[in-house]
């Protein structure tokens, strides 16, 4: 993944969310798929819905939720989530 690569939620996606305890089910109206996601992954979607963001900034966004530091390990976790979301058609690279 390129450093500072900016991501955004793909335009056509519309989500329905529902949480029980710390787990979420997320329905993507564009694909008809439903995903089981954890808190961090959902926060990534919510942030990318607001504004295009890169992995490092996303790590800073979710770190307080996890009561941790936005270190390299957390950035790596976020990058994995972004890769998964990209393959699922949930997010895309920011168009310049």
């Amino acid at each position, binding site marked *: 993944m390129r450093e500072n690569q900016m991501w955004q939620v793909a335009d056509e996606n519309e989500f*329905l969310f*529902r*949480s*029980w*305890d710390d*787990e*979420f*089910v997320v*329905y993507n*109206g564009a694909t*008809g798929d*439903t995903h*089981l996601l954890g808190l961090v992954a959902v926060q990534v979607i919510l942030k990318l819905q607001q504004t295009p963001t890169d992995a490092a900034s996303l790590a800073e966004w979710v770190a307080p939720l996890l009561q941790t530091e936005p270190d390299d390990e957390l950035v790596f976790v976020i990058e994995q989530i972004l890769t998964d979301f990209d393959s699922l058609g949930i997010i895309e690279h920011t168009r310049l």
Partner: protein
Amino acid sequence: MNVSALTPSELQSRLKEAGIFLQTGAFIIHVQTSIRSVAEGIARLYADYPLVEDAGFADFHVRLIPPGNLRRWFRPQVLFSFDGRIPFKPLPLDQAFPMLEWGMNWCVSGYSHQYLILHAAVMEKQGGAVIMPAPPGSGKSTLCAALVNREWRLLSDELALIDKAGNTLVPLCRPVSLKNESIHVIRKFEPDAVLGREVRDTIKGTVAHMKPPAESVAQSHITARPAWIVFPKYQPGAPTRLEPLPKARAFMRMVENAFNYSLLGPQGFQMMESLVDACDCYEFTYSNLDEAVAVFADLKLPAP
């Protein structure tokens, strides 16, 4: 008038000529056939079902068509016709009655999108319904057959129909499909259970259908409130174990067992959400039917 009001020859004659209009839960199914084994299966297993006289209308028109040419003599086969079309390859004639059952399930699951439909057994007791979604081989039908012989009302052993308006469970009370070893297990568990003829060498092995309790058939118009979602798993020798399942995970497994969830779009998601909200969710492992029935008897209704 119920099917039992007809003599075997009257039933066979009606099936052969105009057919019968069978009320099965919310559906009227028009069945036509000249195949004797189908008439015998209907007489035995659908005895308590109402016949709709002068209906004219049916949700599904189905025919079991016997071979008409040389096939009559050499490895005879049967065709299933639905609204005049032949959706499946023929099966050996001996499998005509199971083919009727499978075909009727196919009609409902493929063409009744006024409901959210799950591959699941549904039983009700004292105002609460348990939904048991499961893939084939999980022991779902065996457990369902046992429970309906122990005071649970049968809504369906195969298809859970969830009404869009009220999120209630709509009965589709039909014979319970037993396969292979579970036929023997249920005969032993409930010697008074009425089973149809065993049909061997089907794609599912040996199958036999169990007649539903007459009370369940009589209450086929009464919907039920969802109370529990239980994912059963028969495991030889395993201790009986009922374990809570996190709701989000239950949701995803319900989706895996749904026929038309995707087709319903956001409404499907919202219906599934309401269903999971209303229910306590469990995984259930069993090998002993008596113990399994006792666990279900102890289920407490969730708080409203």
